[in-house]
């Protein structure tokens, strides 16, 4: 006779685990004698068996349980959510939020993750980039010399505040876009999801440090222009993952790499210098993921290049009537590049900003070429990029 002795353990303090275990060891339809000294054992066994679909006959010190078929039946038709150690070409909506490789009970809800094919979102180095990003997280509180003493002329401080104001709205776009796509990626492609999440966290930090610098010596940030916001709006509204990756990560954040390096070199104070350096480090990863993701896509689908080209042209046309980079930001950059307000100094600043724009263009051209655009085409498409940089 199969039996299990719970001794003093009640069914309302974990005793059902022993009963379950003993039932799992006998065939459906066989009986199990349950004994124990808990006063409520037979009352609880009756209720538990009813809920689990087992038959029950009480006795003085427990009762007899006849194993029902429901628990076994529950896992019939269950399916594996892919394999734990590799990604599938397509992820099923039925896998839902389940861990990759887990066993999913049949009949559950389907989740509508629009990005659920490998070819749309996967990049082989997503896991490596994610690990790198996690290891490179820095704490804005301790990584930046917020208390370093400095005192800038009003003109220069104003210029820094204006550049920070511009950076903040660009960083906000750079946070919102990966965050939105993260919610659309099927969790089967976990590494991509994680990478987008940590990218959004990077941008959250950038927003924080640029805001703190803007308000370090001033009561409020500077100006936000229609041209700048119009440019960012076309990015935020981009619905296609590949096109958004190209416009935001490859071209926009790519240009920002040059800008942040410029700010690092020309920074008039230690705080601006350090936040520019740290943000540039993060941006380099964002650009790297965008590039490797798109390069992989293009390899499997060369026609994607045409679509990407159209996206650049469409955005250019949409922004043709706007002014692009606002005058205030441009002037502020010149001022930061200049050592002072003497004509010769301003000329030097002007030339540095010219060099910055050439550097941005060259970077974009190089990255477009890496994606597979012919040299001339890459050059032309780079020049169509928004004058707002991002």
């Amino acid at each position, binding site marked *: 006779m199969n039996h299990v002795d719970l001794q003093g353990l009640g069914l*309302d303090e974990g005793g059902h685990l022993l009963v379950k275990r003993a039932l799992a060891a006998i065939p459906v339809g066989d009986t199990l004698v349950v004994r124990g000294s808990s006063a409520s054992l037979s009352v609880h066994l*009756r209720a538990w068996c009813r809920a689990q679909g087992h038959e029950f006959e009480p006795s003085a010190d427990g009762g007899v349980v006849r194993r029902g*078929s429901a628990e076994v*039946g529950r896992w019939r*038709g269950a399916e594996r959510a892919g394999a734990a150690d590799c990604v599938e070409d397509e992820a099923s909506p039925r896998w839902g939020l389940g861990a990759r490789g887990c066993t999913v009970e049949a009949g559950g809800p389907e989740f509508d993750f629009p990005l659920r094919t490998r070819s749309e979102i996967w990049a082989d180095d997503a896991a490596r980039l994610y690990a790198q990003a996690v290891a490179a997280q820095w704490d804005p509180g301790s990584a930046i010399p917020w208390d370093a003493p400095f005192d800038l002329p009003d003109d220069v401080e104003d210029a820094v505040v204006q550049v920070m104001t511009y950076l903040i709205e660009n960083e906000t776009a750079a946070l919102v876009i990966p965050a939105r796509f993260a919610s659309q990626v099927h969790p089967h492609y976990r590494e991509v999801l994680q990478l987008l999440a940590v990218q959004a966290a990077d941008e959250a930090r950038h927003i924080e440090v640029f805001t703190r610098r803007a308000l370090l010596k001033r009561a409020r940030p500077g100006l936000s222009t229609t041209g700048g916001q119009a440019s960012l709006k076309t990015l935020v509204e981009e619905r296609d993952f590949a096109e958004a990756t190209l416009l935001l990560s490859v071209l926009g954040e790519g240009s920002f790499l040059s800008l942040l390096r410029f700010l690092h070199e020309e920074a008039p104070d230690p705080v601006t210098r350090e936040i520019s350096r740290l943000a540039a480090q993060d941006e380099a990863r964002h650009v790297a993921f965008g590039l490797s993701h798109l390069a992989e896509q293009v390899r499997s689908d060369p026609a994607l290049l045409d679509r990407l080209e159209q996206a650049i042209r469409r955005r250019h046309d949409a922004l043709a009537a706007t002014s692009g980079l606002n005058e205030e930001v441009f002037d502020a950059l010149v001022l930061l590049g200049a050592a002072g307000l003497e004509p010769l100094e301003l000329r030097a600043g002007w030339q540095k900003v010219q060099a910055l724009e050439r550097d941005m263009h060259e970077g974009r051209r190089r990255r477009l070429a890496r994606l597979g655009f012919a040299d001339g085409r890459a050059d032309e498409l780079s020049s169509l990029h928004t004058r707002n940089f991002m």
Partner: protein
Amino acid sequence: MSNTLLMGAVAYDPKVVTIWDGFQKWFGEHGLDFDYLLYSNYERQVEGHFQGHFHVAWNSPLAWLQAKAVGSELGRSVEAVAMRDTDCDLTSVVVVRAGSDIRTVEDLRGRTVGVGAGDSPQATLIPLAHIAELGLEPDEDFEVRRFDVLVGKHGDHVGGERHAAKALMAGEVDAACMIDGNHWLFGKEGTLPSGATRILTQTGQYDHCNFTVLDDAPQALVEEFVRLLHSMDFEDPNVRPLLQLEGLKQWEPGRTDKYGLLERAIDRFDTIQEFVGRLREARR
């Protein structure tokens, strides 16, 4: 609409809509045109049943006895055609705090017993009748505290039993009544920490809800309805969520021989006399 089987049910919880919508869809996929009406209380549902508003009632045990009593007044026969496996052979318990000086039912004399809604078979009527049959009259030999205002739902909502259990732990009552499964559930969720209570007495077995039809129900439709219910297989992933929502593993044939405890309780407490009388008068 002549080929539609109409069911009446009580909306004791918003999930009722999810449940019966799911059944409607499933029955539809299996060729049975099924629809349902929701009532806010069982009395209105029983009345509607006799007025021909629908064919099958999803009745609480008390509503079943109400329908049976009204039927016999009006010369109509009633039948239970199906029920849940989880509604068979229930018991209720009366529990006290573990350290209580109440050792026997007799010790409840002069004390306060917490129960569920006044019309709850499992949390009020059956346990109180059980105590009465052991010699102590409610409201005379001991005080009864009722813990649910949702009268008309026949205790379908677990809230009243939980409140009675909490009152027991808070020392506001000396004993509390509940269905056996809730004693286990309240232990699991921490309302009645394991070992904090002692079961004073357990009632005999009784059955709970059933699908009830009257003698004028469309026979072929009802037969198809019952046939489809029995075909619902817990192993079928399309069916399992419905069964889980409704809290069963499989549908059983209707049986009516385990409502005796409740019948004795309502006789003792005159629970449904007024309702039955009102329907009889309305029919004159």
